[in-house]
């Protein structure tokens, strides 16, 4: 699975990724995150430490790809890759390598997180924010125009700690995109307000939402395949029974073809395999749905006022786990030498 972040420079993409990794070292409703590469994990934890003490990462100059495991109750459930881009890549011509890769990765993404800075959205002159959202909307709509499967779009409203209160006009620049999402049969969108500074608000929600559709798709696929193989097993089993079954067994054996009894056995093995996959991910999927049930999902009948009101109410605070904070203290002490 692939998750892609879209957003301009300084919007807080790297800050978000590091904060999320730090927070999800503890179980959040049973979910946690593990980097495949320990060095990547350590780097993100170090950044998370810095962020909690008010030191933000420098602008990303190169594309970095990370591979993670989403864990549930400490069991590895899904692996996914997540790329961090130089923000200016979204406004670069295609002769810029990063821009080219970004466009290609967007087309392959299973979930997309679109980052928008609340500070810029609240500015009196919204021109800059509107133009930035326009380009992101363009890249997104171009990327998904040929998809034939559901995709999640998390619209991450960053730096909400700088807002006194959510106001309707924050959502004005999204009017067109909302209409596209509502008109699409494949895109599920949500506004997710986030803060990553002295306090961490809603940090796990965007990633888990971005993964949601793919995860649900996998459980549905496993269920479908389970039923498919089980039905075939029943069919072969039925065909192998009775006088006709015995005659067919004789003919198949004589011709060297796979007998119905053997086919039934093979199909049952496949059904069991799908059942195991289904059982492995069923519980996490249910937990994920429950965890995300109160998100401000984009819907036809909601107004900007509704989104503002739901965003205002959706403010779940998180802390970095203790061991990261302790680690931070040690590092600070070392800093004296």
């Amino acid at each position, binding site marked *: 699975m692939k998750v892609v972040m879209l957003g301009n420079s300084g919007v807080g993409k790297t800050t978000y990724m590091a904060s999320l990794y730090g927070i999800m070292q503890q179980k959040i409703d049973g979910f946690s995150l593990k980097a495949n590469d320990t060095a990547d994990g350590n780097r993100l934890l170090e950044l998370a430490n810095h962020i909690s003490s008010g030191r933000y990462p420098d602008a990303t100059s190169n594309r970095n790809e990370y591979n993670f495991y989403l864990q549930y109750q400490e069991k590895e459930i899904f692996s996914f890759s997540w790329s961090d881009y130089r923000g200016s890549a979204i*406004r670069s011509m295609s002769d810029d390598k990063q821009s080219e890769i970004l466009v290609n990765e967007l087309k392959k993404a299973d979930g997309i997180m679109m980052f928008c800075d609340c500070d810029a959205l609240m500015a009196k002159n919204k021109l800059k924010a509107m133009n930035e959202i326009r*380009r992101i909307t*363009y890249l997104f*709509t171009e990327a998904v125009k040929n998809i034939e499967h559901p995709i999640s779009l998390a619209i991450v409203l960053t730096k909400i700690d700088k807002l006194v209160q959510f106001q309707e006009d924050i959502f004005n*620049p999204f009017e*067109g995109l909302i209409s*596209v999402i509502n*008109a699409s049969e494949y895109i599920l969108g949500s506004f997710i307000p986030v803060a990553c500074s002295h306090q961490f608000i809603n940090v796990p929600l965007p990633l888990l939402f971005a993964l949601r559709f793919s995860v649900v798709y996998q459980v549905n696929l496993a269920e479908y395949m389970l039923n498919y193989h089980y039905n075939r097993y029943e069919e072969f089993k039925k065909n192998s029974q009775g006088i006709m079954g015995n005659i067919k067994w004789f003919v198949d054996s004589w011709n060297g073809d796979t007998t119905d009894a053997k086919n039934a056995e093979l199909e049952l093995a496949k059904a069991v395999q799908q059942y195991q996959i289904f059982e492995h991910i069923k519980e996490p999927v249910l937990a994920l749905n429950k965890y995300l049930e109160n998100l401000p999902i984009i819907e036809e009948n909601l107004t900007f006022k509704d989104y503002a009101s739901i965003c205002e109410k959706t403010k779940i605070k998180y802390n970095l786990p203790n061991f990261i904070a302790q680690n931070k203290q040690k590092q600070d002490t070392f800093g004296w030498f």
Partner: protein
Amino acid sequence: MKITMLGNNASGKTCYMLGMYAFMSMGLKGFTLTATDPDQDLRLMDQWEALIGDNILPPPTQPQSQESPIYIYDFSFNYGAKPLIDFEWIDYRGGALADDSSRADATFLRQKSRQSDCLFLCIPAEYLQEEIVNDRGEVNNRAKLKVAGTNKLAVNRINSILTEIQQEIKQSKNDGQPVPIAIVITKFDLIYGKRSKEAITRDIQELFNPLFIENSGWLTMICPVSLGKDIRIEDNKIIGEIDPVNVHLPLVFAIYSQLRKDVITVKDSYDNIQERKNRVENDIKTQQSKWNSFFKQKEIAGKVSSLRNQETELAKKEKEIQDITQKMQLVAKELDKVSMFLGNQEIKASV
């Protein structure tokens, strides 16, 4: 599909296109307009940002190359992020319309206009400030000459291109339908509230009379557009707040017209297949009823196979018709309140 914009210098063609693109690429009622080349999107947006941020007018359109003395943009028109139709948008140096037609780009433009599937005629609202035809149908020739008699609006040149198109259609063996025309009244904020819809329609009908003759067959739309209220140009800079109005409608009209043409073509093809299928069915029946049918089984089987192929073809065409009709339903909703004419008759978009 090809769309060509006709309009003289300073008719607001490029500004209109930039505004329409900026507005529609953000999404509007589920529709989006996207440049098929991401670099093209950036170039358009750089010009748009210069226009609205720094109030710098876009530079005059420059030819793409020596061989192609116009500028072509490739766009995709989508609904719910799914492509409805792809098209070419042809922009050109405004002066080409007024120039001597022996100039390469002017010649090329006339040729492109004739090959287009929809023409946009850009008429700046400042030329529609004075009444040309009153509500009793009397023409103020002085006012008309002020607009049509000079080269400013290139009315004569546009009408001559339209006549060329109509003559070409008459000579050719196609369906005989002229291309749809969107008359885009740019900078409409200049006359908003000062002139009624009916008065403006009368003037436009007088200026572009060939389009509005009874049974002329031209499908025409008259649409006022604006980039915002109280927009004006001072020292080559745009002053006023940008807030585009109606900029998407001419494009929606072009798409609707193309879909309308497509559905007719597919229906014709459906009818042809149906006719062939009926003939084969009759042949089979006739052969089967003959005394020697037993000896012609191979021939009959061949015809039955051809019948099956035609049934598959018909099912495909039915699906195509259904798809186009669905697309038409989507765009027709947008054209509810738009002034559309077929010849001199005002009509409504239908599916």
